């Protein structure tokens, strides 16, 4: 099996799915001639032509809006948003149309759109290249959300998203685009949506994370003098409640890690599910280690904002005292 970086695995998924299904097309800003600002779409224009790997005008709402019409004409568009925070203009289309159109036709028409984008902080970038917008997307009815943390899952989840009959937003942790390396199956490779990955098993405490925070969770687990289970959410929606609650039943202690601001973030949904369905298994409070409820900071001090191994260890130690 070849060893690829996470962003190379994204490229591999796109190439493989475009080979498999000639209605799959990739569209976005700079995805064609340049191959994407992170090279996620490199080589696709040469391989599949400018009609299937399309350099669009600089217009996020127009990209997603035309994708709705392209679906009506029988295409499966994979839309790249160049950066997390630049995806917000497409929220209008996502909320008002992409997530509603199947429902609006009472199931008669499908809108198998994929919106994929690099997300998250820690990359020493100018303002608004660091956001974690997953809660906006997960909150939108009719839309699924996936976030990989390994190269193999980046390929498998994106392939699953492209084949899914519903719209799927795939957020790719740009911090580990090139630092995460691993074996990736060749050819078609699908990781089904809706399943968590048990990264490691343990009995004293569960750390739940996704994206670049999975690695932080693992490092914290290494640093703790306890048996720690680490869960990688992988699909934020639909959530694999079974795996989550089984872990809660086993350990009784949960720390949730997310980069996004705390208030009404995705971690709050995880905590709520645990409270509704697993509260009697808990030995202590569910703790969240998150970004703060502030604008993402100046990059010279961004490490103070990002959940760190030390902050996760600190939360875990407090929880282990219960």
């Amino acid at each position, binding site marked *: 099996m070849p060893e690829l970086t996470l962003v190379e695995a994204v490229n591999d998924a796109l190439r493989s799915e475009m080979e498999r299904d000639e209605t799959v097309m990739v569209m976005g800003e700079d995805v064609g001639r340049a191959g994407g600002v992170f090279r996620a779409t490199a080589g696709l224009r040469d391989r599949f032509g400018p009609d299937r790997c399309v350099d669009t005008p600089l*217009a996020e709402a127009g990209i997603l809006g035309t994708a*709705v019409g392209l679906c009506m004409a029988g295409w499966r568009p994979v839309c790249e948003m160049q950066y997390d925070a630049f995806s917000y203009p497409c929220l209008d289309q996502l909320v008002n149309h992409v997530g509603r159109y199947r429902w609006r036709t009472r199931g008669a028409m499908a809108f198998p759109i994929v919106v994929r984008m690099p997300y998250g902080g820690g990359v020493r970038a100018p303002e608004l290249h660091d956001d974690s917008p997953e809660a906006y997307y997960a909150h939108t009815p009719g839309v*699924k959300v996936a976030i990989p943390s390994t190269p193999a899952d980046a390929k498998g989840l994106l392939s699953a998203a492209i084949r899914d009959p519903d719209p799927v937003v795939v957020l790719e942790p740009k911090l580990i685009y090139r630092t995460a390396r691993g074996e990736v199956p060749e050819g078609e490779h699908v990781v089904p949506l809706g399943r968590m990955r048990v990264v490691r098993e343990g009995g004293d405490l569960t750390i739940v994370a996704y994206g670049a925070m999975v690695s932080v969770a693992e490092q914290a687990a290494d640093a703790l003098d306890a048996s720690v289970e680490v869960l990688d959410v992988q699909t934020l929606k639909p959530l694999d409640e079974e795996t989550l609650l089984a872990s809660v039943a086993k350990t009784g202690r949960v720390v949730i890690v997310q980069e996004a601001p705390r208030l009404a973030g995705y971690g709050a949904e995880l905590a709520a599910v645990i409270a509704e369905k697993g509260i009697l298994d808990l030995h202590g409070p569910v703790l969240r280690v998150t970004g703060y409820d502030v604008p993402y900071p100046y990059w010279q001090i961004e490490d103070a904002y990002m959940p760190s191994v030390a902050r996760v260890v600190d939360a875990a130690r407090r929880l282990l005292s219960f």
Partner: protein
Amino acid sequence: MAQVLPAERGLRRIIGDGESTPDGEVDGLDESDFLELYRRLVLLRTYDERSVVYHRQGRIGTYAMFWNHEAMQVGSVSALRAEDWIFPSYRESAIGLLRGMAPATVLSWWRGHPAGWWNPLDYNVASICVPIATHVPHAAGLAWGKKLRGEEAMAIVYFGDGATSEGAFHEGANFAGVMRVPLILLCNNNQWAISTPLQAQTAAPTLADKAIGYGMPAARVDGADVLAVYEATMEAAARARAGEGPTFIEAVTYRAAPHGTADDPSAYIDQARVEEARQGECVGRFEGYLRRLGLLDDDTVAAVKAEATEAIRAGMAAAEAEPPADPGLVFEYAYAERPARLTDDLAELRRVLDA
């Protein structure tokens, strides 16, 4: 590609006034086509007038009327083929009737009943777009997708003067221009976006002037002249089929009815202009034209109106005869497969409702 020039300032007209302004001619329409156009105008007019009454009777919900906009809808749709797609805003809610959709379907939409949510593939009529201008990119995307597949179909998208201020209009029109897609952008310029007049909407001398920025030609037509709209749409459709890309049509009227049933325009509108528009309303104008040509008499007028009235009456009866929607439908259709959590929610709701 022909050079894109600013649109003419004047409005294209074909129907005269029966006095000083003579009638013009339009190619390709025979006597039966003229009568069909008339039947379509009367059908939409009857639908609209009856809907206002149904609203007052509490039989449909809030309703956005399109009185005196019928000519734009009938003239343009009649210039298209069945495979061409229509993207309506709420102002064109009943445009599907021109493609054989049952009146009961649209009335059900305004009644909030699921029977009103049609399958667009049955008529090549997209769902009613409620937010402003966000369907312009959809129409551009569909036209683009058809072109990529080598199909001849095109799209037409309807929106108002206020919609041209929206970012979605700009992005959709720009995509259409860049990709040179077979699309007709039909702007219903009735001078008002609820209470905001056109001069508070744009500093452009005309809305058609915007088209040049997207590299597409534009035409300005009298929106109450069904033949002028038909002719302009035929020309735009010919361009689209020839691979020459999108066209912008500005159809100009003055809004002679409220924005919707919840609106009272007396606080802001120019009543003299309303009266003028009502005098020159589009169905009566075409009726006068056909009478001058000797194609219409009192008996035919009465028969066409009676037929339309009966169709809408029967449609309302059918809409009211729909069985009540099952609350379980709340959980359907959002996803291809219902997620487990929604199945749990449905079970819980059933338990509470059945208790």
